[in-house]
C-alpha cells in the first residue's frame, strides 16, 4: 500500500514538515512579525469567507494571465526563430540575456513613467520576468535538435516547414516546456512584484495593507496563497505536457 501511494505520502510528509517548522517557528516566536501556521490558516479562511481573497485574485490574475500568455506565445515564437537563424540569434539573444539579469525592481519606476500605473506596466513586469527564460530555453532546444534527425527529414524529402513542425518542434518540446514552467513561475513573482511596486492592487494590496496594520497572519496567508496557486498551476502545466508528448519524455535513441 505504501509503495502504491508513495509519491502522495511523501509529498504530504514534505508539506507536514514545512508547515510543522512554520508552526514551531511561529510559536517560539522567531519574530513578533512572524505568525504561526494555524493563525495564518485562520486568516486565510477569513479572507476567503469575506470575499477579499476572491476579488483580490480577479485583480491579480489579469496582468498575470495576459503577461504569461504574451510571454508564452511571443517567447516560443521568438525562441524558435532565434534557434533557427544565427543572424536573428545574434540580434535578439543579448536583449533577453540583459532582460534576465537586469534588476527589475530598479527599472519599475522607468516603466511607470512611460506606461503609467495601469495594467500595461504590470503586464510588462510579468513579461520581463517570464519571457527571457522561455525565449532562451526554446532557442537552445531548437538549436540542439539532433542533426541526424534533420538530415533524415531532408533525405526523405521533407520541406523546411515539415522539418520545423514534425521534427524540430517535437524534439524541442520537453525543453520548451521546462522553459515555460520556469517562465510561468517567474511570471507569478513578476505579478506580485508589480502590485507591490507600482500600485497596490489585488493580492499585493492584501500583503502591503496587512503589513501596514501589523495584521501579519493575513499577510502570510496572502503570500502563501500565491505560492499554492503557482504550484497548482505548474502541476497543471506538467499534466498538459505529459498528455501532449507522451513518447517524448523518454531519452533519445542513439546508444
Amino acid at each position, binding site marked *: 500500500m505504501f509503495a502504491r501511494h508513495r509519491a502522495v505520502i511523501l509529498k504530504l510528509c514534505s508539506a507536514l514538515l514545512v508547515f510543522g517548522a512554520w508552526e514551531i517557528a511561529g510559536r517560539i516566536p522567531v519574530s513578533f512579525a512572524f505568525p504561526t501556521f494555524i493563525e495564518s490558516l485562520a486568516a486565510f479562511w477569513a479572507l476567503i469567507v469575506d470575499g477579499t481573497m476572491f476579488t483580490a485574485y480577479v485583480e491579480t490574475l489579469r496582468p498575470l494571465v495576459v503577461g504569461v500568455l504574451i510571454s508564452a506565445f511571443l517567447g516560443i515564437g521568438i525562441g524558435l526563430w532565434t534557434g533557427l537563424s544565427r543572424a536573428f540569434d545574434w540580434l535578439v539573444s543579448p536583449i533577453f540575456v540583459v532582460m534576465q539579469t537586469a534588476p527589475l525592481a530598479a527599472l519599475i519606476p522607468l516603466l511607470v513613467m512611460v506606461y503609467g500605473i495601469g495594467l500595461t506596466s504590470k503586464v510588462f513586469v510579468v513579461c520581463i520576468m517570464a519571457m527571457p527564460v522561455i525565449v532562451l530555453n526554446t532557442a537552445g532546444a531548437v538549436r540542439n535538435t539532433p542533426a541526424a534527425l534533420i538530415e533524415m527529414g531532408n533525405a*526523405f524529402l521533407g520541406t523546411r516547414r515539415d522539418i520545423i513542425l514534425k*521534427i524540430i518542434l517535437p524534439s524541442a518540446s520537453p525543453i520548451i516546456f521546462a522553459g515555460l514552467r520556469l517562465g510561468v513561475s517567474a511570471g507569478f513573482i513578476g505579478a506580485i512584484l508589480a502590485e507591490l511596486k507600482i500600485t497596490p492592487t489585488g493580492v499585493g494590496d492584501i500583503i502591503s495593507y496587512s503589513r501596514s496594520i501589523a495584521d501579519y497572519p493575513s499577510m502570510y496567508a496572502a503570500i502563501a496563497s500565491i505560492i499554492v496557486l503557482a504550484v497548482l498551476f505548474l502541476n497543471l502545466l506538467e499534466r498538459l505536457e505529459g498528455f501532449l508528448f*507522451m*513518447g517524448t519524455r*523518454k*531519452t533519445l535513441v*542513439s546508444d
Partner: protein
Amino acid sequence: MDTTITENAVAVRNVYKNYGDVEALRDLSLDFPKGQLTSLLGPSGCGKTTLLKIIAGLLPADSGEVLVNGKPVTGPGPDRAFVFQDFALMPWASTIRNVAFGLELRGVAKSEREAVAEKYIAAVGLTGFENSYPHELSGGMRQRVGLARALSVNAEVLLMDEPFSAVDEQTRRKFQEDLLGLVQNENKTFLFVTHSIEEAVYVSNQVAILLPRPSRVSEIIRPRGFRNKDVDSIRRDPEYLDLVDKIWASLKSYVE
C-alpha cells in the same frame, strides 16, 4: 553476371569534395550496377560516408556529378532512400509512424501510408511492435525500423551508411543474411558503406575499396563463385576467404 551489359543505377563522375583544407574526395569516379549491391569499403577517414551523402543529395559535391538513372543529382530525391548508421528514429513516434514517415513527408494519406508501413514492418519481422516507441526496442529492432522506413518509400536505390555497425554481432549476422534475401527479391540497387571486410565480401556483388589521402577508388572486387550459394556456406567458401585475406593485405598499411 557480365557487367558490360548491366545498366548503372548510379554513376559518380569525377567528384571532388573538400572540407576546408581537408581533401575528402579527389576526382572520384565509380559505377553502381542496377539491381546489385555495391559496398564502399575502406579505413575510417577515407570519405566513404561523404560519398554516400553526396549521392543521397545531402551534401553538395565541389565539382563533378552524380547521375541516378542518368539524371544528375541536385538534392535528395524520391529515387533514393537512406538507412542511417545511428537509425535516426524519432523518439516521440511509434514504430508505425517512424516507418510511414517518409510517406507522410510525401503527403500520402494516413490510412494508405500505414497500410504500406504495415507491410514492411511485417517484412522486416517487427509485427506486433507497431505501437512501440524506439526506446522500447533493441538496437537491432531499431535498425529494422530504419530499414522498413527506407523500403516503404519504394525508392530504386537504397543507400545504407554502416547500417549494422551499431548492432551486436549476432544481430548483424542475421541482418547480413536478410540483406542477401532483400537484394534477391526487391530488385533494388543497394549502396552499402561498411568498414568490415568480412561483411563487405559476404553481402556484395561488387566491393569498391576506397583509400584515404587522397581518397580514391583503389580497387573493385567482384566476388563470383559463391554469390549464388546458400547463405550458410558462404563463409566457408575458399574464394570468400581468399578475398577477405587479399583485401586485408591491401588495407593493412592504412590502419594506424
